[in-house]
């Protein structure tokens, strides 16, 4: 991180998987993958696949966590042991605890939590296959699942990652690029207002580069959001 990679990851303007720097991997989305949840979705960016399930609003236990004037949202980001090449030891760790928190903070501004005091919305994000950009894939899935669950929201949340390799800005990093990048930025926005709900940066970027990263992110988030919306509407308008 922070320095140029040893391997050449961009050759003749093409990345390792044949994409142009500003291209997103092929995206596939599916709704209702967890039958017992109030809302659920599966989102894949290339090989990275996240399943999100939303439960609630439901009664919040333990009771001391209840807030009398507002509801809360709890999130759990978890990587399956088989999601990576070297088996990940199961259960929460430092990394997943942090990502659980940033996923929560990314979703929180979009939800009208004050509509259900003392209750909770539980969001579970499982990464079943990881190949870079898992947190933004998770946020996209969680956002779809929240809308499907009928949670009252100001806007949807859409996220994308932007990074820098060999001094070139690239969109939607895959696993190899993620490990060899000079910088890696995860951005989540609410597309209607372009408000940023998540902005995390690893590595080094100049001020100008950061501004370019943001405009790349916004542009791609809008495209992803169109797909999300289309999917949700198709659920009810047939085929």
């Amino acid at each position, binding site marked *: 991180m922070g320095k140029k990679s040893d391997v050449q990851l961009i050759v003749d303007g093409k990345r390792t998987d044949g994409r142009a720097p500003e291209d997103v991997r092929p995206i596939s989305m599916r709704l209702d993958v967890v039958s017992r949840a109030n809302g659920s979705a599966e989102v894949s960016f290339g090989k990275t696949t996240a399943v999100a399930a939303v439960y609630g609003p439901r009664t919040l236990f333990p009771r001391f966590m209840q807030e009398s004037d507002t509801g809360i949202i709890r999130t759990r980001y978890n990587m399956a042991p088989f999601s990576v090449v070297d088996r990940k030891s199961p259960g929460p760790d430092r990394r997943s605890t942090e990502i659980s928190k940033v996923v929560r903070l990314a979703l929180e501004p979009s939800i009208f939590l004050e509509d259900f*005091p003392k209750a909770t919305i539980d969001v579970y994000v499982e990464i079943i296959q990881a190949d870079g950009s898992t947190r933004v894939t998770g946020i996209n899935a969680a956002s779809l699942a929240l*809308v499907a669950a009928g949670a*009252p929201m100001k806007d949807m949340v859409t996220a994308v990652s932007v990074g820098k390799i060999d001094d070139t800005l690239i969109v939607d990093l895959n696993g190899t690029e993620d490990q060899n990048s000079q910088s890696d930025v995860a951005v989540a926005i609410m597309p209607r207002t372009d408000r940023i709900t998540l902005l995390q940066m690893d590595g080094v970027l100049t001020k100008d580069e950061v501004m370019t990263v943001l405009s790349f992110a916004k542009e791609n988030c809008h495209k992803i959001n169109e797909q999300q919306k289309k999917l949700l509407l198709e659920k009810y308008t047939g085929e």
Partner: protein
Amino acid sequence: MDTKLVLPGDLIGERKGRRFGRGTFVEGENVYSAVLGIPRASEVEISVIPMSGVYLPVMGDRVIGTIKSVEVSGWTVDINSPYTAFLPLAEAVDEYVDTSREDISRFFDVGDVIFCRISKVTKGMNVQASMRDMMSRKLFSGAILNVTPSKIPRIIGKAGSMVQLIKQKTKCDIYTGQNGLVWIRGDDKAKAIETILMIERESHLKGLTEKVEKMLG
């Protein structure tokens, strides 16, 4: 019913002094949808009928509840919602009961199903139920069906036409609670359940009554 749907954050229209109801929010002069649903705009109110979501109690709703526990002077009732309702003794029984001598479980016991009215909802979502009206009663035997709460009006139909039709054709007793529970009792229960689930699935589509008529023969 047309199939135009809105998503959270979609603009429905200008407010123009109108009320904004369920499933909407206002920014400046514009009214936006807060849920995935069907927008309803009239002269006085803008609202969105959600396609999914849990039941949040509103005063005056008629709901089907299950007694969760018996307290000293009332019952807690599970109303298929994040919040439980409390049914005070005075709102349920007409006669005088000396609570220091008598166990009130002889009126309602844990697991009993009742059809009641939401009489009070505070801002902090303390919910009170009441059985002080003609419709409220204890429901014996029968089956309870769980559907999306926002689809209940469609199952009831205009002035109860749809539910009347199902009752007539299947000769079942049916009670619909606005909390998304439907209680059914009768010999042809299976057919009634099948019909109601079909209505739930296709509630946003046109020509539902004809389809139901055809289905019930």
